[in-house]
């Protein structure tokens, strides 16, 4: 600790350089942490569904092919099935195409036992069963458009030639995707005057162990019918959606890596510069009896401090910015669901510390080992 003043004094010696280095590390780690938040959030969502007891049943031909509504009762009688909810894609838009969010119509009866993990109160579920135009809205979408429970909103159909007017009765929270809107399928069917078709049946099974058995049972039941089914666990269903964006996630990760490389170069350069200028002093310290190891330690501490301060500034700002983004502005578009998971904060700080240590390692090592006599003579 008694060397703390020495390290601080050295950092303050060239204030401008220290500030510039800290800022460039901060700026780079800001973008790094924001970039890797994207794939990390996606992976966390997938990990959450791994233990899910829900199964998605859709037409084997693809999601645009419907299934007959009558399948519901047949699925419900399959052993281990606890609840079945039919779901249809509505694809309505609230204001404009560019600010759209997923909206779906679901059978109201068994929504409560199906999504117990969505933090919806019993009263809200009750209202959803009572009010024909009821809707649940994801917390992200609520914030983004400044909506509140009790409000009426209208969605303009793009897939179907109708508009629906809905009354918000509850907020979807918990582990649900934050941007969904759910309303009642009986209301949609009535508006369409074309009852009977469903895009997906969500099936809840009694425990995670019976997921595979139920999947096989359901698909066997409808094999060789005019609408064959493909059942998937919730995790694999989500994964097939996310795979669409895989290239995007890979890009974010690669960019993140390049950012770290770039900042590594920058930091190494500054560390080398600042140590080179101090060769004479280092030789003097050593001739006074400071060991090479102590000097190496002091130089590394200095550089570590620069890295960590930059890291804290960078990911702190990114955390706040993402928080501001996800809590509102429609300008964020599809990124509105992004947030920074704690693991990313830790990763960024670790990267910051590594940048600090590694960047100074070579020049500091060289300076600490250099022959005292030569150095003192060269400096004169």
């Amino acid at each position, binding site marked *: 600790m008694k060397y703390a003043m020495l390290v601080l004094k050295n950092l303050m010696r060239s204030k*401008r*350089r220290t500030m*510039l*280095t800290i*800022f*460039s*590390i901060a*700026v*780079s780690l*800001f*973008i790094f942490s924001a*970039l890797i938040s994207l794939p990390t959030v996606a992976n966390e969502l997938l990990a959450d569904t791994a233990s899910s007891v829900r199964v998605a049943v859709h037409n*084997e*031909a*693809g*999601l*645009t*092919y419907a299934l007959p509504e009558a399948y519901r009762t047949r699925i419900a009688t399959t052993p281990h099935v606890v609840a079945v909810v039919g779901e249809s894609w509505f*694809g309505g*838009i609230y204001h404009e*195409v*560019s600010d759209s969010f997923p909206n779906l119509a679901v059978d109201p009866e068994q929504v409560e036992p199906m999504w117990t993990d969505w933090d919806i109160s019993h009263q809200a579920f009750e209202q959803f069963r009572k009010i024909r135009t009821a809707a649940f809205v994801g917390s992200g979408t609520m914030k983004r458009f400044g909506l509140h429970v009790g409000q009426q909103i209208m969605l*303009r*159909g*793009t*897939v179907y*030639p109708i508009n629906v007017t809905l009354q918000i009765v509850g907020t979807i929270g918990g582990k649900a995707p934050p941007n969904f809107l759910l309303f009642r399928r009986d209301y949609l069917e009535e508006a369409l005057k074309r009852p009977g078709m469903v895009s997906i049946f969500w099936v809840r099974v009694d425990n995670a162990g019976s997921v595979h058995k139920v999947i096989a049972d359901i698909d066997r039941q409808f094999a060789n019918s*005019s*609408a*064959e089914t493909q059942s998937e666990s919730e995790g694999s269903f989500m994964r*097939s959606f996310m*795979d*669409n*964006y*895989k*290239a*995007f996630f890979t*890009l974010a990760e690669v*960019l993140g890596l*390049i*950012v770290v*490389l*770039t*900042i590594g*170069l*920058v930091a*190494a*350069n*500054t560390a*080398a*510069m600042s140590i080179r200028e101090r060769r004479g002093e280092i030789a003097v310290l050593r001739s006074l009896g400071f060991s090479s190891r102590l000097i190496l330690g002091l130089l590394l501490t200095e550089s570590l401090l620069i890295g960590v301060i930059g890291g804290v500034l960078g990911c702190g700002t990114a955390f706040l910015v993402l928080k501001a983004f996800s809590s509102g502005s429609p300008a964020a*578009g*599809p*990124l509105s669901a992004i947030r920074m998971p704690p693991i990313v904060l830790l990763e960024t700080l670790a990267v910051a510390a590594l940048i600090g240590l590694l960047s100074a390692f070579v020049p500091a090592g060289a300076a600490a080992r250099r022959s005292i006599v030569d150095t003192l003579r060269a400096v004169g």
Partner: protein
Amino acid sequence: MAIPLKYNVRSLLVRRVSTAMTAGGIALVVAVFVVVMAMVAGFDSTIRDSGSPDNMIAVRKGSTTETGSAFSLDQFEALKFLPQIRRDKDGQPLASPEVPVQVLMEKIGGGRENIVLRGVKPVAMKVHDKVRIVEGRMFDPALNEAIVGKALLKRYANGTIGSTMRLGRGSWKVVGIFDAAGSSFESEVWAGAQKVQDDTQRGSYYASVVMKMAPGADSAALIRRLADDPRINLQGETEPDYYRDQSVVASQLRRLGMLVALIMAVGAVFAAMNTMYAAVAGRTQEIGTLRALGFSPGAVMGSFLLESLTLAVAAGLIGVALALPFNGLSTAFGNYVTFSTLSFQFRVTLAIMIQALLFAAVMGVAGGFLPARQAMRLSVVDALRRS
């Protein structure tokens, strides 16, 4: 009189390691810029190239994409003889009713992905003038036959001529491969309109109609007619307009890429400033000598700015060179406007390269300005005295 550029180049070479590290940082920023822009350009042009300026597309009113549209055969019959629509030499109107549906297609190496299966009539080949069969033959609309877009072959299984694919509920025999000048149609499978309607079990309907406009036809008048005629009642748009809306994903990506590159550039500018400040500090005596020789303060400042600019532009060239191997690389991703997978290639265009070099130059000037001004302000006597 200006200080010769040679002085700057040699100064940069004296501090080899430091110069290389600073240049490396800038080069990586430039490379990121080029790669992201090349990806966006490829994605964007793949969508936009799908349109022809003299084509009009009509969908059900209120629909934003053709995959979310449906209308009756009568509506098509009512529009196809409109005077604004071009006729072929047999007098047949060049109006192509289409039924695009999303189906799952098996990938090479497992898994399935959404692609578009487009039901068309033979007239489609005349309306979409970029589409031509490069191998095999056209499908027979009376049979479950299909032709496959060239871009699908690398990514999906069973696309070759003679094989049978399962798409939707049915099986389709591949009889031809088509090229569409790099546009998004190359990520589609085309088959007979009626066969596709049968497959979806949604009855007889079309989702869109693409019309080739007669030379000199007024597109605004045609759009009004399509909307106002009660027998037609459709929403028309020229293809370039329609496909521009489909590529909102590209413009969002472009904005994101710019933002990332810009923030990285701020970091790189700080780094360049550090290097240039060190250069000025290390060469105080030289600056004094130059001034004593009669070079003006402006010449000194110009010289240091030029040095920073040289460093940045050289780094920019390296960055562009680093990014060049990405040119032509194919990839694919989901367009969440159409919910189907689009295969496309990175395109490093000349415009992107020029922008990248300008970007590098701006970084150089921004990083060099303050240190250069400091060099200019040194007093001759002080500079010479300091050792």
